[in-house]
């Protein structure tokens, strides 16, 4: 079967022949038969819809939960980074994010989004770090990496922006491609690949084989254009950003320092 899924509404629609069934993140075991006419009400104004092809119900439920969890972690991160909110609220966000990041795959799910765009100037990283320090080690570690990788994230972002529009069928196609790259973790993978300085080609090979990206007609040309700026300059990043300690990626905080130290 196929499915339509939105993390923002916590809703998935299973499409099997003429049958439409909705499942919801709060009660994924319960399926509700739907008419096609109900679908706009189910998804409201959500713009984060994605299509899943050739999946079974268990896969849809799993994906819906992953996406909803990642959306929850992203929202908590943004609250933590928001200087307009009170210290109390930001502190609670740090605690809840710490709890969320304890579950398998949640750090990577969050990094997939946070590594896809440099932090806006309105984000308060020092304030967020201060609220995580001492009692939220996973959050602290996440923020330390985010701080250290900002120059790389910006480079990868600019490389994406610099890809000529002519390589995409339309502006909408470009947005769909970007959403797929973010969701499937390719921005994050490229940031990490550039950081190590030796695996851009491996990144490219893996991305070219990714089933979601392969649905885009311009997949090969776009990905090649994206990695081109990094092929000749691996030595720069290899020397500027040190490798974090083993085990750090899943939340074991490095005591008392940033990844650069």
């Amino acid at each position, binding site marked *: 079967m196929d499915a339509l899924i939105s993390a923002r509404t916590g809703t998935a629609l299973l499409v099997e022949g003429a049958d439409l069934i909705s499942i919801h993140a709060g009660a994924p075991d319960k399926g509700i038969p739907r008419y096609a006419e109900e679908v706009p009400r189910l998804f409201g104004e959500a713009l984060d819809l994605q299509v899943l092809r050739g999946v079974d119900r268990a896969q849809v439920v799993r994906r819906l939960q992953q996406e909803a969890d990642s959306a929850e972690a992203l929202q908590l991160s943004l609250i933590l980074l928001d200087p307009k909110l009170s210290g109390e609220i930001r502190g609670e966000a740090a605690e809840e994010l710490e709890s969320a990041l304890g579950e398998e795959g949640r750090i990577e799910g969050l990094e997939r989004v946070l590594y896809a765009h440099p932090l806006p*100037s309105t984000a308060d990283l020092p304030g967020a770090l201060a609220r995580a320090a001492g009692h939220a080690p996973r959050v602290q570690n996440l923020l330390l990496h985010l701080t250290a990788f900002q120059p790389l994230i910006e480079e990868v972002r600019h490389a994406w922006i610099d890809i000529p529009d002519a390589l995409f069928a339309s502006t909408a196609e470009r947005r769909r491609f970007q959403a797929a790259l973010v969701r499937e973790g390719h921005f994050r993978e490229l940031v990490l690949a550039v950081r190590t300085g030796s695996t851009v080609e491996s990144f490219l090979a893996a991305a070219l084989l990714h089933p979601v990206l392969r649905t885009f007609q311009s997949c090969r040309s776009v990905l090649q254009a994206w990695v081109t700026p990094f092929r000749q300059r691996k030595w720069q990043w290899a020397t500027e950003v040190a490798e974090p300690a083993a085990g750090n990626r899943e939340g074991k905080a490095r005591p008392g320092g940033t990844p650069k130290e």
Partner: protein
Amino acid sequence: MSDPACSFCGHPVPLEWSLCPHCARPSLYPNVRVAEQESERDALAFRYRLAVQDAESRGCGEAVRAFEAAAGTTVAVLSRSLAEVERLANSDRQLYATYYQLLEAEVKLPDDDAWDPLRRLADEVLFPGYKEKIRFAALSLDGAGLPGYGDFALVLKEEMIEHRASVLAGNSALLLRKWDYNVPTGSRAAWKERARLCVAKLAARLKPSMTEADFAALLLRSGARREDDEIVEVHIWGPLSSWTFERVVLSRPAGPRRLIRARVKALRAKLAEAGIDLEERGGAWMP
């Protein structure tokens, strides 16, 4: 029936157009123009008179007048998830919008047959040529929404929607099938005539002893099956933002929820900046 004339140039403007095709001056909103056609208003007036006469013959004259007065004070409510309300509340904040937008893209449905039902959405019958402009809400007397579409009920400011809203006698997704995709005249109305539509639809269920709380449940009720949901559907032409909200009502969710305390507190703080209250109902779980 001929199309109504443009109020400026006098030439006909097709009902589904939102501006005059001849002089390009803005016209009324297409859903409102359809509801205000003479044939629709006459049919609704007829249904309304029958409903009132029937209620009076059953000794419910007082109740029908009270119900009509109450229905005239109803608000439009959208039910949404926490994440959707957060998106609306934060849409003008760069920090949030930057990351929300990374995952947003107009979905492209696959070309194969399995997706045909979704391509043939019957909203085209109600909103020919402009269905993507329509937002769906429900009439509510007490600010409650249908929980099946989200725990948060967004109550809309009347002055922000009254000029662009129309109402239909039920859930259009279900009614259109029941009606075999032929919308009977007198089943929709412009916003200002919503009370008459409510009377035409519901007067037969009024009893002399009914209170305002009973009226609220009569207008909007969540049934065991979706076919049993009771609503008067509101169709709003055009976009909504947090500035369109009067208040937000949070109902107690049916299932267990985690990690929601900071998010709800942050949402409350952001809504407060815009002068919007976040009202809790049905439990003490919220901070």
